[in-house]
């Protein structure tokens, strides 16, 4: 709460200036254009829970050479968390607000020595009606040429970031600050074919003509220097009086489709304290994880009925939680 008041105190003169000079509307327009908010509303015991994800960013346009790109992105402000109307019933009780700055490395794996289809021919193929192409056999000359021109090629995107994270309970009573670095990529860019193997059991549960491109899991690996541990429940739960620690983080996200429209989603987060003190190990607080599995069925372009199972612990307090919620998932622009 003190940090929020401090931020508001610093921002207040700026906000007053913005109001007077007419830039307030520009700021509102900017935020509206570059932000996204996603909320899952669910029942938690007999209270309302909200899982939210918010991001405000402005990505610079990459250079013209779109085949091998290395560029820096702009600052991004993100916030995500698990909150509830009644805090006592919110066992996860975690919010993370993050200021990130990073970059991207993008590479297309294409063999320049191969004689492919010329750009002129690819442009000509765009004049053909896709309905006619798809009605013909997938071994037809035009379909194979279309696939060669516009099919998915092996690419690799490595996204890196440096960040400052403020991790807090929903009432901000317990909190810490993490400074760190991280890298995101999808598994198939390192292990081609992994997605197909992972998705194989689920492919039996859907029409192969409806959805046949398996999803590759997305992975984030990071390191954090976490400070302010005295403002968390760490001392009370472990007896350790350290005020900071080093921590490694892994996150994995993946989904697949079964039946006609039922989506299964999986999100896994793990936090390892590096070289933990003995009392932290004894209290089993050196390794914490969260598994979230959800099933959703779309009810409209912006909403879906969801059942979500969440089990594990999140910073700053890593309180153990196990909850199943039923509700709606809504996306806002």
């Amino acid at each position, binding site marked *: 709460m003190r940090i929020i008041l401090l931020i508001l105190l610093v921002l207040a003169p700026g906000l007053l200036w913005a109001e007077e000079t007419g830039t307030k509307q520009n700021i509102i327009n900017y935020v509206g254009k570059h932000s996204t908010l996603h909320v899952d509303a669910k029942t938690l015991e007999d209270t309302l829970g909200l899982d939210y994800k918010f991001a405000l960013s402005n990505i*610079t346009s990459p250079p013209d050479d779109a085949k091998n790109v290395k560029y820096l992105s702009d600052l991004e402000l993100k916030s995500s968390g698990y909150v509830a109307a009644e805090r006592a019933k919110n066992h996860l009780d975690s919010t993370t607000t993050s200021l990130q700055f990073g970059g991207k490395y993008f590479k297309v794996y294409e063999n320049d020595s191969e004689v492919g289809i010329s750009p002129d021919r690819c442009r000509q193929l765009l004049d053909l009606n*896709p309905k006619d192409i798809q009605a013909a056999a997938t071994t037809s000359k035009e379909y194979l040429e279309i696939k060669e021109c516009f099919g998915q090629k092996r*690419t690799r995107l490595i996204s890196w970031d440096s960040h400052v994270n403020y991790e807090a309970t929903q009432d901000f009573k317990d909190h810490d600050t993490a400074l760190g670095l991280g890298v995101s990529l999808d598994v198939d860019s390192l292990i081609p074919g992994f997605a197909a193997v992972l998705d194989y059991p689920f492919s039996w549960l859907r029409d192969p003509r409806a959805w046949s491109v398996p999803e590759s899991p*997305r992975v984030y690996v990071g390191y954090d220097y976490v400070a302010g541990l005295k403002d968390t429940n760490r001392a009370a739960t472990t007896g350790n009086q350290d005020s900071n620690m080093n921590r490694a983080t892994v996150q994995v996200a993946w989904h697949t489709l079964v039946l006609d429209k039922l989506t299964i989603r999986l999100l896994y987060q793990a936090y390892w304290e590096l070289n933990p003190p003995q009392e932290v190990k004894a209290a089993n607080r050196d390794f914490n994880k969260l598994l979230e599995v959800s099933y959703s069925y779309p009810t409209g372009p912006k909403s879906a009925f969801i059942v979500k199972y969440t089990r594990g612990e999140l910073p700053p307090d890593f309180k153990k939680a196990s909850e199943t919620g039923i509700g709606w998932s809504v996306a*806002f622009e």
Partner: protein
Amino acid sequence: MAKLNELQVKNLVYWFYVFHGKFPPGTTYDNFEKLTMGNLQVDDPPLPSDPDYEKNKLSLELQWQFDKLGYKIPSPLDEMKKKTGTLLEFYTWCYQKHEERPTK
């Protein structure tokens, strides 16, 4: 070399999402324009520390597709992040924004 016409851009966007497997079941060439970005299962679920990873990748891959044909286009990432933006609006944006790439 002239710019692509609107039908060609429409078809390019259609094939792009078909081969990436991002259309929901039941999507056809006749109805894909009405789909919104929210209907496409991209960054689903979002990685907490990188919620737009997949959108970034698709954005770069689409730019590369245009580049292969001899065109450049600004990053379509912001358009891909509009959950209620339709595919019709998206390929119209691509048509309006693409231009011939200067000869290398």
